[in-house]
């Protein structure tokens, strides 16, 4: 309170005195804006940002530890009917990007990136699902086996 009274006496605490920020505000009128346009110029995340991650199914040993540990229940184990093996499928809409799955994986099958998750206006990015992966792997194998006898 004493400080306030001193200022009152010195005439600083007077409503008629000039606002301190006025000069700066006027100067800012002639500067570039601090904000950036959202869709065309996305801000690059810092090094080590927890971005979109995907499973390397070739490395996966189907232990389902990531699905058990996931705090958001975003990982579902999908069974491939032919081999009866189960592989994790991440729901990026549910995912909170805590990287707990990356941390617990015993064979480090998760690949990480600093790519930002898509904003809500765009459709949610769905990376390769286990079934797609299995189909492409099978087709590759069959094509390679078909090609090899011709040679």
């Amino acid at each position, binding site marked *: *309170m004493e*400080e*306030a009274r001193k*200022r009152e006496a010195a005439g*600083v*605490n*007077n*409503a*008629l*005195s000039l*606002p*301190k*920020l006025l000069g*700066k*505000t006027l100067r800012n009128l002639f500067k570039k804006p*601090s904000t950036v346009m959202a869709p065309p110029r996305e801000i690059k*995340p*810092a*090094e*080590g*940002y*927890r971005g979109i991650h995907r499973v390397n199914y070739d490395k996966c040993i189907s232990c389902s530890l990531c699905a058990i*540990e*996931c*705090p*958001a229940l975003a990982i579902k184990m999908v069974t491939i009917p032919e081999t009866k093996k189960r592989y994790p499928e991440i729901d990026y809409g549910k995912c*909170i*990007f*805590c*990287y*707990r799955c990356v*941390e*617990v994986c*015993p064979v480090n099958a998760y690949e990480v990136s600093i790519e930002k998750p898509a904003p809500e206006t765009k459709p949610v990015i769905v990376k390769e699902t286990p079934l797609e992966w299995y189909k492409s792997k099978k087709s590759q194998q069959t094509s390679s086996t078909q090609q090899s006898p011709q040679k």
Partner: protein
Amino acid sequence: MSKNKYLVEIPVGPQHPALHEPISLRLKVEGERVVQVDVVAGYNHRGVEWLAERKTFYQDLFLVARTCGICNAVHGASYVQAVEDLAGIEVPPRARYLRALVMELERIHSHILVLAVMAEVIGFESLFMLMMRDRERVMYLKELVTGNRVHADYMFIGGVRRDLPSEKIDKIKKNIDYIEERMKEYKKIWSEDPIILKRTQEVGVASKSQALAHSLVGPVARGSNVKSDIRYIDPYDAYDEIPFNVITRDEGDSWARMMVRIDEVFESISIIRYILEHLPSGPIIPWKNIKLAPRKFPKGEGIGRVEAPRGELLYHVFSDGSMKPYRVKIRTPSVLNIHNGVFMMLDQHIADIPVIFVSFDPCISCTERVTVIDLKTNEKKLIPWRKLVKEKPLG
């Protein structure tokens, strides 16, 4: 109050241009003078404590951090402290310093945020914009250290989740210098600008004895010359080795509370500088690998308390020897400050109510977590959200 006067009830909130968060203040006014204030909370209830009992100890790490968006690292730190107390885990020195680093970064951005919001409530929008612009630098530093600008998810039972490489230290120092320079300018504005002084000085005064009697915590108590700081009273993590001052002011008004926060930003900057210079080397978790952390914790209970940006935060974790905690009790500072600080609003003008309310730095998502009170039967009981929905369907 004489009989021929009318009392008018004015609802402020839950959706109101002056209050930014969903809480309702029922003001009973006599002319321009506030006579009675009723706080109606419960619009942001999510049942975090109930959910915490149904998830494992490691899943709860990420759940408790989501109790509050702004002070998520301190929530995590308090929870892991409680679990470490329960299991008797020793934290390596490097992890203790890194935890303190992240919590101080969080304190800086939380204080800058409330200073900016206060400027906006006063009607000083240009200061709000400028402060929010500079706050983004702190958010960037948090992203650099932890991996995300808001939800750090940095704390782990026994240590922290990622190490700080030496090349990032220079970046932090450079940005911290910039923030300090800017904050010096803002301190000048906050202590000299006529608009701010006229709106905040001698508004919502709490004396030292009142602050103690109403058990106020954090910067609200420190603004009334109560030396309450958990970092100082009961040092945790690395705070027993770091030198710092507890900032107090004796005015006790809204302005003093904001000035305490500005001075604490400078104190946090000096703490961060000390941490970066004296960061010990060594492991960040007591085990060889983060994958080797124990799955189960012994039977018992543990307490963790930290100084959140808003005051004392307490976690009480009970374990029955299984993978899931038996009970997680959270006591947040905003509960005390919002409900007990109402006495400051009495005998004030209606226009000053938002200023007083924002000077508490209210965090609504912290306030509303668990208790559902049945007003009809006057019973207080814990009702899970799903059961509540089943029993009383909407419409």
